[in-house]
């Protein structure tokens, strides 16, 4: 296959960016999207030109590093898929494909398609954990948890923290990301002690980072590679209201 690519190039955080046209030839349908970009980059490198910067690591859909908007959709056209698991058989010979970075005020561009997502780490640091030190834990089976409850918690815990939800949201809201962690811990007995402070602190941190609010459009759910449902946000809102009524600031 031969494809026309329009790729966002931006030399650094402070410089202006623009879409640059490239042609990718000899693309096999078995290639992943990132392998297609590897081939384009190999060509650039051989010519001594600056390679297109993009983030990726595990290339099996679990680390959450890859982060491309393909034809306007975060992670591209396949549902429940990170862009590293998107394959070129999804495209046709002669297609034009536009590739852009995650766009959000809280995710400044580092270079080309690479953005800084450390704001998500700071949201977790604000309270996305159970405060236990190593050493004092009781035997694992002293905390029985119904299977259905742990399965529901696992559904939320499956979030890979890629930030596609933010990129897809017109408000650049991190609500789906945040609510997945809040729901995971609110469902489990281990998370009860800090339940109210957690939700309040994490939401305050998200506001401080410049993420927007939720207006219930559901774009986040549609692009989430782990298909984490928007009902997590409803749960987070309930948790937040309960915490507010309890007077947690």
């Amino acid at each position, binding site marked *: 296959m031969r494809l026309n690519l329009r790729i966002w190039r931006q*030399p*650094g955080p402070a410089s202006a960016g623009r879409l640059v046209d490239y042609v990718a030839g000899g693309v*096999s349908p078995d*290639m*992943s999207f*990132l*392998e297609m970009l*590897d081939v384009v*980059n*190999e060509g*650039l*490198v*051989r010519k*001594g*030109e*600056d*390679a297109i*910067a993009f983030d990726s*690591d*595990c*290339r*099996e*859909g679990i*680390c*959450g*590093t890859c982060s491309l908007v393909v034809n306007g959709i975060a992670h591209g056209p396949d549902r429940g898929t990170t862009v590293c698991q998107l*394959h070129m058989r999804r495209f046709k010979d002669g297609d034009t494909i536009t590739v852009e970075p995650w766009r959000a005020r809280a995710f400044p561009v*580092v*270079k080309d398609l690479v953005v*800084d*997502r*450390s704001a998500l*780490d700071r949201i*977790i*640091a*604000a309270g*996305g*954990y*159970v*405060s*236990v030190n*190593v050493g004092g*834990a*009781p*035997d*694992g*089976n002293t*905390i029985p*948890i119904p*299977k259905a409850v*742990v399965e529901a*918690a*696992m559904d939320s*815990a*499956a979030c890979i*923290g890629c930030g596609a939800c933010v990129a897809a949201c017109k408000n650049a809201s991190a609500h789906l990301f945040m609510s997945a962690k809040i729901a*995971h*811990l609110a469902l*489990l007995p*281990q998370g009860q002690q800090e339940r109210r402070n957690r939700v309040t602190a994490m939401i305050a941190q998200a506001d401080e980072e410049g993420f927007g609010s939720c207006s219930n459009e559901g774009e986040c759910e549609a692009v989430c590679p782990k298909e984490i449902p928007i009902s997590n946000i409803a749960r987070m809102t309930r948790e937040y209201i309960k915490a507010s009524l309890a007077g947690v600031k």
Partner: protein
Amino acid sequence: MTLDAKVPAGPIAQKWDRHKFEMKLVNPANKRKFTIIVAGTGLAGASAAASLGELGYNVLNFCIQDSPRRAHSIAAQGGINAAKNYQNDGDSVYRLFYDTVKGGDYRSREANVYRLAQLSVNIIDHCVAQGVPFAREYGGLLDNRSFGGAQVSRTFYARGQTGQQLLLGAYQSLMRQVRRKTVRLFARREMLDLVVVDGKARGIVCRNLMTGALERYAADAVVLATGGYGTVYYLSTNAVNSNVTAAWRAHKRGALFANPSFTQIHPTCIPVSGEHQSKLTLMSESLRNDGRVWVPKKKGDKRPPEQIPEDERDYYLERKYPSFGNLVPRDVASRNAKQATDEGRGVGESGLAVYLDFKDAIQRLGPEVIKQKYGNLFHMYQKITDENPYKVPMRIYPAIHYTMGGLWVDYNLMSNLPGLHVLGEANFSDHGANRLGASALMQGLADGYFIIPYTIGDYLAGTPLPKVTIDHDAFKEAADNSQRQINRLLSVKGNRGIREIHRELGRIMWDDVGMARTETSLRRALEAIPKLRDEFWHTVSVPGTNDNLNQSLEYAGRVADYLEFAELLALDALHRRESCGGHFREESQTPDGEALRDDDHFMYVAAWEFTGVGRQPELHKEALHFEEVHPTQRSYK
């Protein structure tokens, strides 16, 4: 140099308890006065940084990724072992210890392995307390499964995402310490050198990957948890950024590298589809619990699998190993797949694959149960291959997955360089010549949560550590050294791609230093590697500059280190003229083709000392003593 493993005296079951009591403690008020560098944020690094932060040390934690949560531990699927015996099926600390020593083909250190088995139970308790959503039985208690070669059910899991959930547990604990300011986090930093002052590890030099600046950090001790070196084979199941650089540069500063030839090949990966392939995808070997491995009996049988009748199929693992069947250890399963394809009985277009068939399990249990157990793996397989494994058998082939070798450490997880501690996959100690399934997560977390917090205290309390600042000459020298390498890479301005050279290195390693090694193949590799290294330094093209994010430059640095390291790996494989675990020398096999150890000559850890690039490294031996588990020829018949 004599290698002292510093194994405590006493009966094996009491060594660690006794040692914990004998080790010196750092006064709580003094802990914050000690600075500890932790490089890496995988299971070992994140758990170490979090635990040391909890104790009150001043921790500086580095990772190459944009967030600590992305370390490659996240990709581990199957589970984590622990000797809880919750299933009442005869497990015990001693049995886990025994299985690990045997599985490692008697090339690990008994005392370390025993401690690992002891601590396994504490890991589960701590992770449950953190809120890790381990799978549960209907009664609410923790569920277990039997995993890759174990005859008891001791593996705890969280769907097919156990590594992810354990790493997120450690990451969350780490971020809690970041918030409490006991840990300072430095993401997108690559460690380029270890700084040694007066014979002790006192700091690191790293490159800020966003700005290109070389940064210097001083500390009282350094902990490396930078993972394994599987990507020396180019194609592996490791993440594309995994690399040997931090460990290799520490080696060049004097840390011994132990057993580099001990690499593990995982039997259940998705086969290679073409030249463009950037990595291989592993599917959890828990699949072997319900999938049956087979190839056609006839050579070159190109019929689609459903047209091959039962009596023309060879379920070779069940045939050759009736008691373990499809659950034989990884090295045995991998070598048998290679043997089947070498015989011309491989399947798929390339002929480099065997079938893993779920038809019987689906008939027995129904597709819903299979979906619940392996849904995400089936989904992943279908995404990559465009085939539906509920309908047609999966095609699998072995791939490099884990590296048992690593920097040499003593019982305290300290290398021969005082102050340099090495954890997780980056060290060599616990898995011998072959790691059992679901034991990598266990080791990373045991090292980070439960061992280093004690042993590093003993080092700090018992060692005079005069204050060192980053203005010290050793820091300047290390920074200059890193800068020179960067300048050199940028100035070659050749016309060959970095990936192209890495791919070529990978091919040499896979063909000649891969699943089966011979004297001839290893000598061939040892000729080819220095040639390729030379070619790299004359023809590589590294575009861009050093003053911003430059992924080509990062990659070139890692490949440059691999081109040095690969030689050591091949050399170690050549010197070890025996087969053991994942290291299979064709010259050394039993009449029925099993790995044949040579305990009289090779019952030792080979720890190599760097003497210069392209120069013969010096071999130091740590003799291994087996007082508890008597070495036998492994047999899974």
